[in-house]
């Protein structure tokens, strides 16, 4: 039932649990970007989390049940889009793995996986978006979150669109492809090691002199923002969608409302 590009594609937004709970403005930025690009965006109510906490803790049974719930809720859409490389990677790469022992369910998961995209690469690679109508005063540096980069090949897409934001300057950091130390439950199971890794990351962020740090995954962003704030840094941290949608006026991650 996939629509032709000229018709308005029906997109199911997989909000992701962190965006839903901590930073809904990222979800609205995603909706705006896709609506501007001609999509009809819907948000199925029957969604919670992609199941990674269970999957990566070895709890395959719960991961599978959550995957079934997500597939059921999102099957009717032309596309399933998440403002996160990590959650999109889970839906696209790992859901089929969960059903390897059941040919019918596996095929269903494979068909579902084909429709799944990470937000920014969906805009550029599927919808053919070449520029955005947004302005941002200042310099940014962009961190490549691991799953988006290595599972889904998201690297040039956000940079290409960021270059079309009026007034924005990109200052690349050293090793933007090195993990920030978040790793889901890793950061609370091995806090000492996670802290070492994120400290190295914030060092490279500071070196750029950029005023704002961007990335495409809220988990990584909360980790890096949390560390930068603890270090007393004034660098603002935002999801890349906020900037691309021209919705970066509100408080940055971990900042209080102004005024």
């Amino acid at each position, binding site marked *: 039932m996939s629509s032709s590009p000229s018709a308005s594609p029906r997109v199911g937004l997989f909000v992701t649990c962190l965006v839903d709970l901590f930073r*809904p403005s990222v979800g609205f930025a995603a909706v705006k970007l896709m609506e501007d690009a001609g999509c009809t965006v819907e948000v199925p109510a029957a969604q919670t989390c992609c199941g990674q906490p269970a999957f990566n*803790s070895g709890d395959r049974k719960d991961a599978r049940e959550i995957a079934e719930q997500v597939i059921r809720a999102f099957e009717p859409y032309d596309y399933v889009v998440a403002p996160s490389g990590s959650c999109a990677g889970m839906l696209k790469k790992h859901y089929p793995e969960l059903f390897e022992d059941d040919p019918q369910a596996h095929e269903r998961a494979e068909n579902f996986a084909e429709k799944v995209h990470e937000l920014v690469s969906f805009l550029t690679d599927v919808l053919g978006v070449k520029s955005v109508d947004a302005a941002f005063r200042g310099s940014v540096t962009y961190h490549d979150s691991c799953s988006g980069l290595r599972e889904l090949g998201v690297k040039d897409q956000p940079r290409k669109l960021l270059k079309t934001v009026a007034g924005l300057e990109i200052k690349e950091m050293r090793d933007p492809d090195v*993990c920030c130390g978040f*790793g889901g439950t*890793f950061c609370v199971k091995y806090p000492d090691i996670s802290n070492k*890794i994120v400290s190295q990351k914030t060092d490279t962020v500071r070196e750029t002199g950029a005023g704002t740090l961007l990335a495409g995954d809220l988990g990584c962003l909360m980790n890096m923002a949390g560390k930068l*704030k603890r270090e007393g840094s004034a660098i603002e941290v935002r999801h890349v969608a906020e900037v691309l949608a021209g919705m970066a006026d509100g408080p940055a991650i971990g900042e209080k*409302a102004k005024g």
Partner: protein
Amino acid sequence: MEIKSPTFKDNSAEALKDVNLQKALGKVRTGFIDKRAKAAEALPEFEDLRDRARDIKDHVLDHLDLYLERYTEKVEAAGGHVHWAETAEDARNQIMEICRRLNARTVTKGKSMITEEIGLNEFFEENGVTPVETDLGEYIIQLRGEHPSHIIAPAVHVTKDQVEEEFRAKHTHLDPNRNLEEPTTLLGEARAVLRQKYFDADVGITGANFLIAETGTSIIVTNEGNGDLTQTLPKAHIVVASIEKIVPTLEDVSQILRVLARSATGQDMSVYTTFSTGPKRDDDPDGPGEYHVILLDNGRSSMLGSDYQEMLRCIRCGACMNHCPVYHAVGGHAYGWVYPGPMGAVLTPSLIGVDKSGHLPNASTFCGRCEAVCPMRIPLPKMMRHWREREFERNLNSATVRYGLGVWAYFAKRPSLYQFMTGLSMRALGLLGRTKGRFGSLPLAGGWTKYRDLPAPEGKTFQQQWAERQKTKQREAA
């Protein structure tokens, strides 16, 4: 070797505080990575070669029995002997038997992780045989009474100043005022000290990077030439190798060699690639009088046909640990047994049990960089996850983790209830965090807030706001 993997957390806390170690690890973070990237980029067919290398090993693992038999026949036809060792103990005893027969007092050794796995040096010392490590890195850590912290750079955790200090302390026959400023002078000194040991040795032991079935040849790759002296000069050369080192043909091995050094050190080829087939022949100018191969299983055959079979493709290049943020943070010793880094996180539970090494496959952010650079395309994160599944099945996780996961999953599978509960709690949390926009500490979030602030939620959840937006739209439409 004593297993210290159960105290991984304490080991890593120590490692993070160790100033010398942290200084030494800085080299790993830059040197290896840049060199590998340049070497890979300079070879257009590098990615294709990785596919071929993977396919060759997959083929071997599917027909391992056949190739092992073929290999054995060929070794024996060349005048060598093959000894099958099911366990580490078998291997140690077989090696000791050869050494006793030859009245060996001194044994030189080329760099070999497999002899670490079977704890050979300790065993030799208990039995009155002196093992002499001849690889520079191995020699340094032998002097320091340590084990390797990296599979190709065993002394990567030691700074140059520490090496100098060790040499001055142990090489007491040399002028105490000698200049050891330059790394090359350290190398020269080690060479000079080791030179006589090669002649003293009765037996030389090496590992093997590959065993070739069609010719019965063992191969080692080195950069110092120490392996050649180790295996050529003594009365007997003993090769200790695990069963998955088999490769069918010379042609196959030349394919895999092209990805090995590039992935490891960024070299096109290692300085020495040495092929050994049988003992010295009558018309050979030199070579060992006896040639033995100890073929070690030590749990590997049980990995065949399991979720972990692909781990047996590993060619021990070290690229996974060179690119691992966790290894960069804590170094190799924290892993607590022979094999560190991502490959160790998969292999160690297979060899010593996940009950003793459960931290290893858990201490990963799943950043995937190891898999991205593995020349044999081993899906390391996937296999670490499989170990986590084994732990979960066997109830090896802590009660707190299981309870927390259970509660979370209960709600995650009930969207309406989940949204009701999260709606309430995020509003409360949002209000609490409003003044600062973040929390410096929060009950139950100590793991997070020990080192970083927790950004406060904005308030209403996305789902709440979306539902409101939909209602407004409907009202406007009506």
